C-alpha cells in the first residue's frame, strides 16, 4: 500500500506541477487512524497529505458533481467502485469525460471501520461487508494506472456470481415478517439524508425530498414517511446503483440500505437480463428503455 501512496503523491505532484488539473481529489488521514476522508489538493506542497490505505472508503466520483460548472480540469483517484460511479455520472451527463483525469488504483478490498474501532490497530480487522462480494475491484476506466496490469486480469478471471443470500433470506419471510423487519429498520431513520448525499447515483440538482412545495413528503419523522423516502430513493437509484455501499456506511443509524438496492439489482437482472450499472457507458438504463419481449405478468 505504501508503494501506491508514494505513486499517488508523485503523480498528483506532477499533474499539479504541469497544471494539467487545478485540483486532485484523493484521500487523507482523518481524525482517527481508521478514517481516510476525501482530500482536495490544489497545491503541489500538499500532495504528501494523500494516502492510500485500508480505509479509503469514500467514493470520490461523487465530488465531481461539485466541479460540474468549473472550467478547469480535475484529477481524481478511482477504485473499482469509484470508476463505476464515474461512468454512471457520465451517463447521467453530470460530468464531461475530457474535464477529468482519472488515476486508477487496484483495490484489494477495504477494511470495516466499525470493527477497526473496536478491535484496535493491532486487531485482525475483517474486510468491509460491501467489499466482500465486489465484482469489479479494479477501475474500469482510467487515464493513469497505479498498479500492475496483471492484477487486472487476475481479478477479471475471479469474478464470481453475485451472492444474494441476504436478499433471499428476506424474500423467504412472510409478508408480515418482512414488514416488521423493515419497519424496525426505518423506525430508526432520522432522515439526515447522509445516504443520499454520499450516493453517486443521487445526482439530482434538487432532490424531490427537498421540494416541500409539491408536498411529495411530509415533514413528520415517522415510519411511514421514512419508508416512503426509502422506497422512492430505491426506485430512483434503480439501475444506477453501482454497489459502492457508501449509503450504508454513511448511515448513522446502521440501516441496511444496500438490502433494498441489492433486491432491485437482483430483480433487474432476473427480469430484464444481466445488467451491472456503470460498466458500459453506452448501455441504456434499465428503466430508461424497454424490450417488447419483457416479462408479461400484467395480463
Amino acid at each position, binding site marked *: 500500500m505504501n508503494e501506491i501512496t508514494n505513486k499517488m503523491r508523485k503523480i498528483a505532484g506532477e499533474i499539479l506541477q504541469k497544471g494539467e488539473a487545478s485540483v486532485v481529489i484523493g484521500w487523507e488521514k482523518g481524525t482517527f487512524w481508521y478514517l481516510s476522508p476525501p482530500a482536495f489538493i490544489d497545491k503541489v506542497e500538499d500532495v504528501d497529505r494523500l494516502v492510500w490505505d485500508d480505509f479509503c472508503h469514500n467514493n470520490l466520483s461523487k465530488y465531481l458533481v461539485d466541479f460540474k460548472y468549473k472550467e478547469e480540469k480535475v484529477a481524481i483517484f478511482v477504485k473499482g467502485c469509484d470508476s463505476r460511479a464515474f461512468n454512471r455520472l457520465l451517463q*447521467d*451527463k*453530470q460530468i464531461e469525460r475530457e474535464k477529468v483525469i482519472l488515476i486508477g488504483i487496484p483495490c484489494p478490498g477495504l477494511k470495516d471501520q466499525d470493527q477497526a474501532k473496536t478491535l484496535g490497530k493491532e486487531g485482525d480487522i475483517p474486510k468491509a461487508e460491501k467489499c466482500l462480494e465486489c465484482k469489479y475491484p479494479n477501475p474500469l476506466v482510467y487515464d493513469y494506472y497505479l498498479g500492475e496490469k496483471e492484477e487486472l486480469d487476475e481479478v477479471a478471471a475471479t469474478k464470481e456470481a453475485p451472492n444474494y443470500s441476504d436478499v433471499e433470506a428476506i424474500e423467504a419471510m412472510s409478508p408480515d415478517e418482512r414488514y416488521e423487519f423493515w419497519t424496525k429498520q426505518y423506525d430508526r431513520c432520522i432522515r439526515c439524508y447522509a445516504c443520499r448525499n454520499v450516493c453517486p447515483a443521487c445526482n*439530482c*440538482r434538487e432532490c*424531490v425530498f427537498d*421540494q416541500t412545495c*409539491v408536498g*411529495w413528503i411530509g415533514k413528520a419523522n415517522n415510519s411511514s414517511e421514512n419508508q416512503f423516502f426509502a422506497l422512492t430513493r430505491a426506485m430512483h437509484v434503480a439501475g444506477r446503483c453501482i454497489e459502492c455501499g457508501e449509503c450504508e456506511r454513511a448511515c448513522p443509524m446502521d440501516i441496511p440500505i444496500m438490502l433494498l438496492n441489492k433486491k432491485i439489482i437482483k430483480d433487474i437482472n432476473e427480469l430484464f437480463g444481466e445488467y451491472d450499472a456503470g460498466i458500459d457507458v453506452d448501455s441504456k438504463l434499465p*428503466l430508461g428503455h424497454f424490450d417488447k419481449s419483457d416479462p408479461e405478468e400484467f395480463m
Partner: protein
Amino acid sequence: MKRVGVFICHCGTNIAQAVDCEKVAQNAQAFPGVAFSTDYKYMCAEPGQDLIKKAISEHRLDRVVVASCSPRMHEPTFRKCLERAGLNPYLLEMANIREHCAWVHPDDKERATLKATELVRMAVAKVIQNEPLDRSTIPITKRALVIGGGIAGIQAALDIANAGHLVDIVEKEPSIGGRMAQIDKTFPTLDCSACILTPKMVEVANHPNVRLITYSEVEKVEGYVGNFEVTIRQKARSVDLSACTGCGLCTEKCPTKVPSEFEMEMMNRKAIYTPFPQAIPNKPVIDRENCRYFKTGKCGVCQKLCPAQAVDFTQEDQLVTERYGAIVVATGFDLFDDSVYGEYGYGRYKDVITGLHFERLVNASGPTMGKIKRPSDGQEPKNVVFIKCVGSRDEAKGKAYCSKTCCMYTAKHATLVREKIKDSNVYVFYMDVRTPGKGYEEFYTRTTDQYGAKYLRGRVSKIYEKGGKLIVRGEDTLLGRQIEIEADMVVLATAMVAKENAAELAQMIGFSYDQDNFYTEAHPKLAPVETHTAGVFLAGACQGPKDIPDSVAQASAAAVKVCGLLSKERMETEPTISIVNEAICAGCGMCVTVCPYKAIELKFIQERVDGKVINRRVASVNSGLCQGCGACTVACRSAALNLKHFTNEQILAEVDALCL
C-alpha cells in the same frame, strides 16, 4: 381562496335512480373550496348549461366540477360552456358518476351515493389546482411529402397536387411505378397493368405541383405536424439528369450484364440501365456495385459514347433538407422468402416459382415475350400447379395473416395459363377462396367454370422431382384422400410482407407498427389512414396487404387528410403538455430517451454562478411535438418535468382527497 361550483347531473333517471344526487350536492357543500353546489335533471341540456353559466356569474365561481357522464362524452360540451361564461375551459373537472357509478351499482343506492360523493371530492381537490391553459397555434408549411412512388404514392401525390398543393415524391428506386409496373394484368378486368399505370406515371411526372425525387431515400425526419423537417439522401445516379436525353446508347454499349431485379432475375440488364422501358424518369442510372469502371477503374465506355456527356462518375450522394406540412407514407410491400419451405424446394427446383415471377413470365415485355415457358428448360408447361397461402396463414413458418390478394391473382394466373396454353391443365391448391370485392367472385367462378381450372382444397405437403416432373403431394380434403400431381411448373402464391426496413422508417418518423412490421393506423375503423402521429398518413400495402383498388382508395383518402391540413394557415395545439422547471432540471436526459415523440431535447441555458456565466444543460419541450403522455414526468427523478392539467400536485391532491 378558490371558489368552486359543483353541478350534479341526474341524467334523467340514469344517474338519479342509483345515486341520491341531491345528497351528493349537499355533501359537496362541505368540501374545502366549494362555494356553490346544486343538482339538476339534465346538466348537458341548454337549461342545465344556462344554470352553470348563471351560477358562475352569481356566485363568482372560478372553478367548476360537473358530476355526470364520462368526460369522454361531454368534456368538450362543458368546456365550451365555461368559455361562454368567461372562464378558461381548463378550469373544469368532471366526476364520472354515470358510467363509473350509477350504471354499475344500480342496486346499492347508499354506497353508490357514497362513491359519487368521493368522486366529486376528488374532482374538487383536483380542480382547485387547475390552471387556465391556452391553446396555441402553429403555422403550417404548405408542401406535402409522399414517401414511395408506387401506385399508392402516385395517386396520393396527384390528388394533393390537383387540390392545388405542392407535393414531393421520394422514391428509392431509379423509377417510379413500384410493384404495379411489374404486374402483367389486373384482376378482375384483365386490364393491362402497364396500360393503366403508365399514364398516371406520366401525369404525375408532368404535374406542375409535383416534384419527383427518385433514387433517393428519407434519412432523417424531425419536427412535427405542419413543420416536418426531412433530410433526403439523393443517391449518386452517375448520370446528370438535366443533360441526359435518354437515348439509350450507353445501356446498349455497356459490357456488363447483371440479373435484372425488375425481371425477377430471369433476364439480364446492364450496369448502366433503366429498370424497365416505361421508366420515369426514363434516364439511366449506374449500378456502382456491378459497374466495371467502379470496380476496376477501367472501361468508361458509357462516358466515352454519351453524346450529351451526361455520364458523371464523380457524382456523390447529396443530402437535402426540406420542410413539409404533412407526410404520406406509401412504401409498399416485399415478398415473403419462400425458401423457408424446404418441403416445396423453392430455390432448389428451378420450376418452382413465385407469383411475381409468373407475372414477368406471362408479360409481353418480359423475358419470354409473354410466352409461358418454364425456367428450367424453356419448355411450355402443360400441367401447372398453383399453391395458395405460401407464407400466409401460417404461424409456423410464415405469417399468421391472410395476404388478401393471392386468391384473386392466382385465379388470374390460372386463367392466363388456360388462355395461353390451350391443352394445359391447371390445378389450384387452396384452403379457402376469398373473393370479397366487386366482380371478384364472378371472376373466380369464370376461372373454374369457363377456364376449367381444377381447384383442390388442401395445403400441399411436399414437392419433389421425379423423372423430370415435379411431384406435388397433398390431400384433397374434400375427398379425404392423398393426391399427387405430376407438374411441369409450380407457382407459389407468396405472402405479402412489410418492407425489410419498414420498422426503421416508422421509428425515424415516429409512429407505430404491428408485430409484422405493417404500419398501424390510428383506429382500425374510424381513422384507417391516420397514424397516431399527427400529420403522418398511410397509403397502400405498407399498412397491410392490399390490392390495387384498395391501395388507390386509401391513397386518395390520405390525400384528403393532407389537403385538409394544408388548407389551413395555422393549427391549434392542445395545451396539456409537459413543461420543464429549468431551475431544478439537472440535464441528465432521461426524459429524452423515454419520449415517444422526440419532443424533448437538451439545450444550454446561460446562468450566473459565483459571479461567472456558465452554460447549463437543461431539457426543453417542443410544444408542437409533445402529445402530453407524461412519460417524461415519471422518468425525471427530481420532478423537474410536469404535465399540465395532470400535474404531480393535482394527482397527489386527488389521491389525498380520496383517502380522507
